[in-house]
């Protein structure tokens, strides 16, 4: 199973492109179609009194783009800016409305093609992340890549999810 090659059995699924990126040591991926562009980190203007996962706003060629610290969104420590840090401009659909948002990630790894049949359902238990954030798992040599439901992760309605994550992480600590 581990060494089985993806190309062997492709009867039904279709091949799609995905972009993988790193948050800390973990690998995540999203469909390339969702990514509008990848930016170097420009000057970010912080909006006062905003939740800490909202890093601020940037000037994207004349438009104002909110930027989110994806690490905080996943209950990790805030991002540390390095030469590899970049912003993924993702287009997400919230309440039938398309909005663009910048996602700060530690580094972008690669773009790869994958047959949709090779996406395994996410285990409902034993994940540190909210179940609805993870759409599936991709088994890649000796590690897993988590396929994110990007619309859910960055939906602006989810302000309350932050507290939930905080609570969860606190519970974890307590445990």
């Amino acid at each position, binding site marked *: 199973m581990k060494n089985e090659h993806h190309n062997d059995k492709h009867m039904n699924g279709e091949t799609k492109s995905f972009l993988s990126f790193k948050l800390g040591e973990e690998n995540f991926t999203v469909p390339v179609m969702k990514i509008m562009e990848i930016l170097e980190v420009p000057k970010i*203007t912080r909006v*006062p009194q905003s939740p800490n996962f909202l890093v601020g706003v940037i000037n994207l060629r004349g438009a104002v783009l*909110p930027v989110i610290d994806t690490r905080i969104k996943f209950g990790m420590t805030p991002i540390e800016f390095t030469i590899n840090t970049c912003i993924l401009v993702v287009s997400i659909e919230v309440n039938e409305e398309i909005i663009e948002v910048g996602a700060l990630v530690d580094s972008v790894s690669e773009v790869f093609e994958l047959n949709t049949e090779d996406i395994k359902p996410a285990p409902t238990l034993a994940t540190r992340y909210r179940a609805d954030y993870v759409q599936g798992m991709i088994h890649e040599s000796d590690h897993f890549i988590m396929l994110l439901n990007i619309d859910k992760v960055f939906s602006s309605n989810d302000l309350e999810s932050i507290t939930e994550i905080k609570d969860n992480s606190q519970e974890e600590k307590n445990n």
Partner: protein
Amino acid sequence: MEEMKATYIQEANELLENLESSLLSLEDNPNDTSNIEQVFRVMHTLKGNSSMFGLSKIAEFVHDLETIYDKIRQGEMELTKEILNTTLASFDHLNLIIIDSDLEDEKNKENHVVLIHKIHGLIQGSTVSQAVVVPSEIAENTNATVIPDNVLRTYYVHFEPKTEFFLDGSNPLILVAELCQLGKYLVVPHFHKVTSIDDFNPTSCITFWEIYIESGGAKDKIDEVFVFAESNAKIEVVELTSSDLISNKEFAEKVQELKFKDQLIDRDVLFELAARLGKSIVPDLPILPAIDANELLAESKNTQKSETKEKVVSSIRVSSDKLDELMNLVSELVTTQASLTLYNQKNETPELELISENIEKLSRRLRDIAFGMTLVPINNMFSRFQRLVRDVSMALNKEVQFVTEGGETELDKSIIETLTDPLMHIIRNSLDHGLELPDVRERLGKPRKGTVKLKAFYSGISVYIQIIDDGKGIDVNVIREKAVSKGFIKSDDVLTDKEVFDFIFYPGFSTAAVVTDISGRGVGMDVVKRNISELKGSIVVESQVNIGTTLTIKLPLSLSIIDGLLVDVANVYYIIPLSVVDKCYEVDNFEMMNNFNQLLVLDEKQVPFINVRKEFGYEEMSNSEKSQIIVVSDADRRVGISVDHIVGEYQAVVKPIGKYYRNQDFISGATILGDGSIALVMDTHKIIDLYTEHAKFELKS
């Protein structure tokens, strides 16, 4: 064709809107002739437009309606409640069938027939009563028989425009064509005055006409056609016979003969001929098909049409997409101009400075003009409410006088669109819960008729809209008790009346004992508040028991470009709208430190202040430094806002910062500066509300 149809529908909707407001004011004031004229004119235009697009069903329907109003206009009929109700019902029907012009919907079809029947009933009803009530009038019309179709008279019309007739854009052919619509006709054009081709001047009118016309109407119908041409032309109208001379073969031949000879008819010959032939009329086959008498009445009113046309010429229709595009370009221009100014400041080239300043002036003017174009008078919305008030008050058996004030106040079109629903809700509430039944009002010593007033006015960069009723008002104590019982507050909490009234806007908060189908379910006011907040506006309730309730909505004039003061706080740029800035001061920081009552003495006056660095969570400056205090006015308060430096004046193109920041609504948007960095636009009203509340809270705890 589809595009044209869309234009037609758009125009028809506007006409109908116009019609509705006229009808409703007619209801209050049935004898207002100018309104009757207006109703007639609108119907006439609508009919014309409809038949132009071949929508004959609509055209015929409107034509019948128009007939009623024409009769009223002529004093042949009286405007009754029944007529008005039928007209309003027809109006609703028209609103539907404009889209469904072939009456494909069964319901529309049915309704159509019913209404036509009703309208015909009204028209006929009037002619019967007419005959009974004013027989003398008919008797006066010597030759008139009872059925108007049989009234035949032939007129000779001499129409000779002056040479300068064309200069004001008049077209004699239109008048001739209009005249010919009155009945059967013979037209003899004359070109005597045409000399040689060398003298020919295309701007002078040298043709004139002799027209023989058989008209069912009286002479004034003909006069009316020329009403605007009188001063510019020689016009003579003579009655030849009281019979149909045009259908007479001999007469027609004679005229034809003269026509070919291009000769003016000798008057004596003409009269002699008319007298001879007039007596012995042999009904011949009509040269032209006879035209319905109603049509005659209607068409003769074309003169009015030209009046309305003039109004239309003064404005043109531009699609809002184009305007949006213009606004975007202007916004970009303003941003680009800011970069230019910045570049110039760095490089200090004297020639460039001059150019840059000029461009700044121009872009400012361009911005103001482009803005002005997107503004529309609020009146359009007000007139829609007339109907609402009428229908709702009828359903509730209440007598209501609806007054609007300041309809000329202009607001951004998109704001007006978003505002309609909340306002409708508020008015419905006023009618249902605010105003009492007539008997109750009488007992309370109030006039039976309640008043709901809709008022709009400017103040600074804001527009205020007030909905004022003189109903039973809202009892502060009732709201308070309800808030306590819902657990919003504790029974011993100290709240101002304004704070208590704010509970009206809480979801699920209704004090109405009985839920009616009009209002009272407790959904709505929270939506109203939300809609208005989305427009960056605010809403305040004031009320006194038995005196009435006033809701005041404050809205920004426009959403996208503002004149602002660029400041910096902890190396973050902020924009404060210049319109609220009162005065700037410099103070030593230690004056603000440990200042428990949050007051500064400026110009010997105590001014409360907000320490922005502290409130926004930035590191505070050391005591020895100085801060700038910008005193802003907010309603009747003056509050100081502390910033590090004032950079200067700046035209900010405000862009939304997105839904993620909806809880940071004291920042109304962001703008991009000339160097590409971002400045946040402060909403001082919200900041003051937030941090003065905050201060209060701190004191309490």
